[in-house]
């Protein structure tokens, strides 16, 4: 086995999406990258796993049983551990296109975007209106409200950040979103689906925050523009599951010289004068007997996920998540092969929305006839977490198999990393998409490199990789 170089510009720990995007971008920019994961697979928390691994991860079966055997070929399953989708017009799509990682992946639309009104037996589920004209046909609103919603969405559509004459006489830099809703005379139920299923806020706090109205308008525009891109929903999804995303960026990094080592434990992070100076590590496959390969190398920077730095992160919340296997599409989703369904918090007496993300064999994540639905929310209590997800389970009908572990802690770094040059990412949060993940990518890049990350044109003029 070749020698590991004596020094790297950056050592990246963990192969989650955040780390792989950063690794890829840095390699393309000519940095010498060593990328390490303690696991035997790519993706960390953002991996997709097969059905046997899923059962083993959650351990919900009796010893000696092999319940995965009744679910067809094990490798036909690629079940996401993170319940997220890509916004078609979002930043991750932009990065994928700018870096050409789209060449290794194929994407499909998510077939529909739905929202629940009411709860229990009276719950109704309807398509989220995607533009002003759909608002006019939506069963979510009465006749007069439809016209008001249309007016509002037209105003959002005409909005230009740098042109205050499009602000509609509102002081958007200072007013709250509540004031905007009031100006358009929108009812509470309309505010609910606009704020939660279009702007994708998970709580109602956004409504009272001064100066946040602009952000809300931009979020609605992202939704509407993503929707307009392919037509069925604002979301797209990679064939074979989200775990393909980190693999794609890892490949990009490797193509530009990044060195990859799975099955590698960090034994020690070496410091000099308060700053990181190198690492000591051991590469050893699980099946290998003996010591494994020990090595050390110098580096001035480390980027890593929270699991590699338990002493340098704090818990900011807990995510509840249940992965459910179904043999039927979800009711009221027009028999869609995939969908997102949002249950806004106010409809079921909660503070945080419940999300359901559904994908199926159409996305090569399970055999024909199966659907994978992930129900998730932010934990509000310290017990009875199953009950917190109950309104979501009610939407699913018969559930063949349910995988639900303890609440998942969400971590954030305690420090920016400027002092010790250890830059730590955040956990994948409860939002339904990757916009906050790419915010974190940009933030880490800024902290580590002291410049803004510009992905546009990153690979332009790159002749080595041309197709033909």
């Amino acid at each position: 086995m070749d020698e590991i170089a004596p020094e790297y510009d950056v050592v990246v720990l963990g192969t989650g999406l955040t780390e792989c995007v950063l690794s890829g971008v840095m390699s393309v920019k000519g940095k010498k990258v060593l990328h390490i994961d303690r696991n035997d697979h790519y993706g960390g928390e953002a991996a997709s796993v097969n059905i046997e691994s899923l059962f083993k991860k959650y351990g919900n079966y009796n010893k000696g049983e092999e319940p995965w055997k009744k679910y067809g070929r094990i490798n036909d399953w690629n079940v996401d551990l993170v319940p997220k989708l890509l916004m078609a017009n979002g930043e991750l799509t932009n990065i994928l296109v700018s870096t050409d990682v789209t060449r290794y992946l194929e994407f499909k639309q998510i077939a529909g975007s739905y929202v629940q009104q009411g709860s229990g037996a009276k719950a109704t589920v309807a398509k989220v209106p995607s533009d002003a004209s759909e608002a006019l046909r939506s069963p979510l609103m009465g006749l007069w409200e439809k016209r008001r919603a249309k007016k509002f969405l037209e105003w959002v559509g005409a909005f230009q950040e740098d042109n205050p004459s499009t602000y509609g006489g509102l002081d958007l830099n200072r007013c709250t979103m509540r004031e905007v809703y009031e100006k358009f005379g929108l009812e509470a139920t309309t505010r609910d689906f606009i704020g939660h299923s279009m702007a994708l806020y998970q709580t109602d706090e956004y409504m009272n925050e001064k100066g946040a109205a602009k952000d809300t308008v931009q979020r609605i525009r992202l939704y509407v523009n993503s929707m307009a891109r392919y037509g069925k929903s604002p979301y797209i999804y990679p064939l074979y599951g989200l775990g393909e995303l980190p693999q794609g960026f890892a490949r990009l990094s490797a193509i530009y010289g990044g060195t990859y080592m799975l099955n590698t434990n960090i034994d020690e992070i070496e410091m000099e004068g308060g700053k990181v100076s190198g690492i000591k590590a051991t590469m050893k496959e699980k099946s290998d007997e003996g010591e494994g390969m020990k090595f050390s190398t110098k580096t001035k920077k480390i980027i890593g996920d929270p699991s590699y730095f338990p002493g340098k992160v704090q818990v900011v919340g807990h995510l509840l998540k249940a992965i459910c296997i179904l043999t039927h599409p979800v009711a009221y989703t027009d028999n869609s092969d995939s969908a997102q369904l949002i249950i806004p918090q106010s409809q079921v007496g909660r503070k945080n929305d419940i999300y359901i993300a559904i994908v199926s064999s159409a996305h090569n994540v399970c055999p024909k006839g199966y659907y994978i639905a992930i129900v998730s929310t932010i934990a509000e209590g310290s017990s009875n977490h199953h009950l917190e997800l109950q309104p979501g389970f009610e939407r699913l009908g018969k559930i063949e198999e349910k995988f639900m572990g303890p609440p998942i802690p969400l971590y954030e770094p305690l420090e920016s990393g400027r002092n010790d040059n250890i830059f730590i990412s955040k956990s994948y949060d409860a939002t339904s998409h990757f916009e906050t993940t790419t915010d974190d990518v940009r933030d880490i890049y800024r902290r580590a490199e002291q410049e803004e990350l510009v992905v546009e044109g990153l690979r332009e003029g790159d002749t080595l990789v041309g197709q033909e």
Partner: protein
Amino acid sequence: MTSRVSTGTRPGARFAQFKLVLLGESAVGKSSLVLRFVKDHFDDYRESTIGAAFLTQTISLDDSTTVKFEIWDTAGQERYKSLAPMYYRNANCAVVVYDITQASSLDKAKAWVKELQRQANENIIIALAGNKADLVADHPDKRAIATADAEAYAREAGLLFFETSAKTSENVRELFTAIARKLPLEQAGARNMRANPRQGVDLRPEAPGTQGGGACNC
């Protein structure tokens, strides 16, 4: 990225696209073989793979049949046993390379063949390439692996077999042509008759049928 076959404009014309992956120990000449096949070029001082995501090259088998290879190089990720499943996914054919002057490289190649036969789909076409044949042309004593031994192993394991030189281009085209001939054109056609190469959505902003950035579509 699965195999694609479509009938062209000419009656009876066939065009098929297949994913080909390269495997083998570091420095046996995987990237060099691809470079020779795709660009008809050779570098004496190639560093380890940098820059080639995947390359494509087309072979015309006869007047009416064209095979296009989408060739994936390991990008060095196999060096520390860190190849991603994405790399093998839907591979239709594999070239397993060893260096005829390095005995250990054939053992490594055999291990890859075993892994392929265990993990890949059962119809995958595997070719074994004993590379750097030019090195033994003038110095037969440099040879570490007898042709007959490798050939016997290949026959037993059901592999195509060539001794190649990326440097002189000996047998390089022959290797890829033999693979193209063995690929199941008919079968792929029956499974997957598609004019449109990609089944998913096209993410590029200028992609036809999509409306990009700019104005809001409210």
